């Protein structure tokens, strides 16, 4: 079974995101970028499936600017076998990404597509679900445990208020959550090996995807600065403050 992993290059999780002066979006020039942490978990899971003999090949795919290849190399250093880079400058909406992934999945014929449950830049949480719908494949989102047995996968999902276990037929789409695994550090020998692994380039147009946005971002703004907290003496005072000062009840 082949595993296809979709990854995204985002602002590094440790960097404090700043809104662009003109309010058109988040500043990304000269900002440190890294692989989306959920995508890293997806790559790690794919590599573990291969190490456990459940997968035969792991392929990572990412759309983005030229530097996206660095992010693909990072995935190859974790242990993925080869990469596919779909060049595109500027943002892509989840639907365009899902269409791109559908076209790649049709070429690659994986038994499993793994994605992060969301990317930490826009927190959309849509791509995996859209991809499953476009492919007409079963989906299991927010996975915290994945067990593959023949042509079905048993997935433990993190849902509001607890865990849910479902079985899905393969091929399927699984989006991964934080507790699925802890990604390894790439070792030096694996970084060296990654430099020699192939990364193919495929144009968006060749995949039949129109990148034109369908949504219009009107304005991006910093969240309002948080005011200081207060201490209350009694439960009655707390209720009063919630009702009259905060206006939340």
């Amino acid at each position: 079974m082949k595993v296809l992993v979709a990854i995204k290059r985002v602002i590094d999780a440790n960097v404090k995101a700043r809104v662009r002066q003109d309010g058109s979006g988040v500043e990304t020039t000269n900002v440190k970028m890294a692989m989306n942490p959920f995508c890293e978990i997806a790559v790690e899971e794919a590599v573990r499936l291969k190490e456990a003999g459940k997968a035969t090949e792991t392929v990572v795919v990412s759309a983005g600017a030229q530097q996206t290849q660095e992010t693909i190399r990072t995935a190859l250093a974790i242990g993925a076998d080869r990469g596919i880079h779909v060049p595109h400058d500027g943002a892509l909406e989840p639907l365009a990404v899902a269409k791109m992934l559908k076209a790649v999945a049709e070429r690659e014929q994986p038994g499993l597509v793994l994605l992060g449950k969301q990317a930490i830049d826009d927190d959309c949480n849509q791509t995996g679900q859209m991809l499953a719908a476009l492919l007409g494949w079963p989906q299991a989102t927010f996975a915290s445990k994945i067990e593959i047995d023949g042509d079905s996968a048993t997935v433990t999902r993190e849902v509001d208020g607890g865990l849910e276990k479902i079985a899905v037929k393969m091929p399927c789409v699984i989006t991964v959550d934080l507790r699925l695994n802890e990604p390894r550090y790439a070792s030096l020998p694996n970084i060296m090996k990654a430099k020699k692994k192939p990364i193919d380039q495929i144009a968006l147009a060749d995949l039949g995807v129109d990148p034109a946005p369908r949504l219009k971002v009107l304005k991006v703004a910093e969240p309002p600065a948080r005011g200081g907290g207060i201490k209350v003496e009694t439960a009655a005072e707390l209720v009063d403050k919630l009702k009259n000062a905060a206006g939340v009840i």
Partner: protein
Amino acid sequence: MSGNFSDIREQIRALCAGFPGAYWREHDRARTYPREFVDALTTGGWLACLIPEAYGGSGLGLREAAAIMEEIQASGCNGAAAHAQMYTMGTILRHGSDAQKTSYLPEIAAGRLRLQAFGVTEPESGTDTLSLRTRAVRDGDHYIVNGSKVWTSRAEHSDLMLLLARTTAREDAPSRTEGLSVFIVDLREARGKGIEIRPIPTMINHATCEVFIDNLRVPAANLIGEEGKGFRYILDGMNAERILIGAECIGDARWFVARAGDYAKTRKVFNRPIGQNQGVQFPIARAYAQMRAAALMVERAAALFDAGERCGEEANLAKLLASEASWEAADTCMQTFGGYGFAEEFDVERKFREARLYRTAPISTNMILSYVAEHVLGLPRSY
């Protein structure tokens, strides 16, 4: 920042994030060896970066090794616990026999064999290496060694030690720099059988020791290269060591500048961040400038070394300038933190103590200046 190698730096930062200040404070307080950190570097293959691929390493150059060491220090960790595993093997690689290379290097690359100790300095000879007194006398297919070493770092945490000893009496040696030889000593066999190791309590957690050698039998097969040529063999290894230590100093300087800057932005006194005062800003800016300048020299020296060119001058200048830049940055950081610089929880006092070492070891500032004066500028020999 010397070189780029962002892929390497990123992984080192990720690895180091698992060893925060609290980890180092604990080992520092207990004076225990940071084994977990060294194991993580070993498992990741980082310490084998300079070993050729044919022997199981990654076959990278000193520039990459420098990036690794710099990033370790800039992350607040202490690479001194492990740096020697990277470069001590260079003497075996460059001057060892094929048999020595094939038996030791793959084991060192795999991390199964630790070559972390290098016994040069002696109580009576100090900086004047050529007057060292440890004596090795040939006896059949062995050498019998007697003498003592001091400041032999990590001897307790190493399987092998490179040992520099005199094999020809000074007066009988064909030249001033001949008569010394390098041996590979297997400490696992030798401890209690001719070698006694005693840790020296110091102001830093450096696992440095006294080594007493009493009728130690070393197989003649463990002699590296030719008898009597040992001093020359260790010299090019010393260039590598100086360049890497220089890179560590750059990392330290980056750490101090970053900490000082962060603190100066947030600490408010007289209703303003202290960093708003130019009296606080300027020393930090100056420390940054000195760090950047020294980093260029480290980079230059490493590039020459990797190209196989002469780099004695640059290696020495790199170590000199980088150790001074890190010390300047350390002092500035200490001053910026006010009283809190002395509190253990900010790690400044620990890094301050650790950074001070590199103005003294592996070669002290005066010796570099004297090298530059005599060998680069042609001034009269002073000693």
